[in-house]
């Protein structure tokens, strides 16, 4: 049982869903990221996704692209990311997921990358451009270090494809809720609900998280009603950060708190 599995088991007992807010390490700067993480914990986040920037984030919309550019421009590196994780681990044992792109892991070497991530307290990894078909070595090495590999499914994934994704995913399956990049502003789509119901019907014990384009409590309520086990909120958090530069920690904690209220069915 990983720390992510434990968290889902606890939440299930309380009839809660997981709220997973996203921060980009190094956006708007190193210290602010720490404040954002503290705000998330205070606001009731269940798991945190901490992005590591990549120069060419092709699954991301403008908000996360800009955050990645800012982070790289201020000199974010893997070693700074690891010291940030060490500081975070001094204040919380919340499960943390690293989201980045395949080339970062490949370039460093899967073994080195996953070993270091694990050592600095990362519980799971999301690589949005790591197709399951190319993932054997990455998964084998992750298994060796007890690292959860979280794969994505899309509303247009066939049932056969979804079964394979479910089979190789640890922690939870990440359903991309829109045809689009992160931060898409199209609200909750009928096809996303259909996909959620379909995948929930196949996933057995594996929790299903929904992300991309979630902004409001209403969005969350709809997904929860249709069986989502986790809600991932990315660009919307970064926009809160962008619009409240002076008291980032409080702004983030308030926003996370309002979203968290919607993660109990019937709340």
């Amino acid at each position, binding site marked *: 049982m990983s720390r992510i599995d434990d968290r889902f088991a606890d939440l299930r007992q309380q009839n809660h869903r997981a709220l997973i807010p996203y921060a980009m390490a190094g956006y708007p700067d190193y210290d602010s990221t720490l404040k954002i993480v503290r705000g998330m914990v205070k606001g009731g986040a269940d798991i945190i996704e901490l992005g590591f920037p990549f120069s060419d984030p*092709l699954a991301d919309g403008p908000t996360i692209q800009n955050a990645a*550019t800012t982070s790289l421009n201020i000199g974010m590196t893997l070693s700074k990311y690891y010291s940030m994780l060490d500081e975070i681990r001094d204040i919380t044992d919340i499960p943390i997921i690293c989201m980045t792109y395949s080339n970062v892991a490949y370039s460093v070497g899967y073994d080195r990358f996953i070993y270091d991530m694990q050592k600095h307290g990362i519980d799971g990894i999301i690589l949005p451009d790591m*197709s399951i078909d190319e993932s054997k070595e990455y998964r084998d090495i992750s298994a060796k270090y007890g690292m959860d590999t979280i794969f994505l499914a899309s509303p247009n994934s066939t049932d056969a494809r979804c079964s394979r994704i479910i089979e190789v995913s640890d922690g939870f399956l990440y359903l991309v809720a829109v045809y689009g990049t992160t931060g898409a502003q199209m609200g909750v789509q009928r096809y996303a609900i259909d996909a959620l119901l379909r995948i929930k019907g196949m996933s057995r014990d594996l929790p299903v998280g929904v992300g991309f384009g979630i902004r409001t409590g209403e969005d969350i309520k709809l997904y929860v009603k249709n069986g989502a086990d986790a809600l991932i909120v990315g660009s919307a958090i970064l926009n809160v950060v962008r619009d409240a530069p002076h008291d980032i920690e409080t702004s983030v904690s308030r926003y996370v708190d309002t979203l968290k209220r919607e993660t109990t069915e019937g709340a």
Partner: protein
Amino acid sequence: MSKFGDFGGAYIPETLVPAVEELQQEYARFSQESSFRSELESYLKDYAGRYTPIYHAKNLSKRIGGAQIHLKREDLCHGGAHKINNTLGQALLAKRMGKRRIIAETGAGQHGVATAMACAALGMKAEVYMGSKDVERQRLNVYRMKLLGADVIPVKAGSRTLKDAINDAIRDWITNVNDTYYLLGSAVGPHPYPTMVRDFQSVIGEEILEQMGVPDVAIACVGGGSNAIGTFHPLYNKSTKLIGVEAGGSGLDSGLHSATLSAGRPGILHGMLSYLLQDDTGQVLETHSISAGLDYPGVGPEHSYYKDSGRVTYSVATDSEVADAFTTLCKTEGIIPALESAHALAEAIKVAPTMKASEDIIVTLSGRGDKDMDIIRRYYEQN
């Protein structure tokens, strides 16, 4: 086959998997169908102007000394570059697949122009992503695309060149995956693009074999690598020495170049595993070249495989060598080459003197240089 050794593959967001699988199946089906092949052949002949001639550049050969230099005149293709070989093939495929909306990326603008032409001819509409730096330096081609009925979408992210145009085209494809065909312009991207684009461009090498037999040396410039792979692939099992030429920019030591195979290491970008210009932690590096069409930090995966296997030699030509080769061809033969193609010429000028007068070099002259007038004029004002 989705891989070239370890290279290639399809490292893509899950949303694109059904689209890429559909493309694999439809391409496999139509490329075997005789009605598809004959339609493509007739467009290549009557619309694009194939065969393209091979010209024996006697004046240039005499000036340089050594081997005979021959030019495969892709610059005489409709639109002024080899790009039309690929866009006609893919646009016909898109049409048969029932796709209404075509998107493309472009660097120098040649692929964008060739896409706009093929789409106009086949009654489709193209939207072309182009880095805003390239929009600036290849303004003539932007206007040509608009005249041909395409929409040009400037991309302001990142280095504002070809790499960023591809990023945004892929993002568009993810967003409009159900009705959109992505018409990629080089032998890069996820499987099946590198294979499909190579197949469509192989007409270059096949014609070379037919027209002159087996040359001693074949030289082509390498951006993403489509004109080079189209030249090399049919010659792969022959005795020809194959040389790909990358953009050396201000020199490899300067860091200002686009010499992916010479200075990069394997990495994952744009859906493929291939050589990549990147820093220690996998961030993609900015590139530089006098020619927008070679200004790309990646390269087609089949070239990575050819490099590691040793079958093809990859060298570089610097901006100043390219400018020299460019003017030399203008003066000796009355042919204005594209700056991309001038990279291949620069290598021929280095290699010819080491060979015998009875030996033959074929240089793929991938495009004509009208689009580069502003750049070359500014280059000579500054140097």
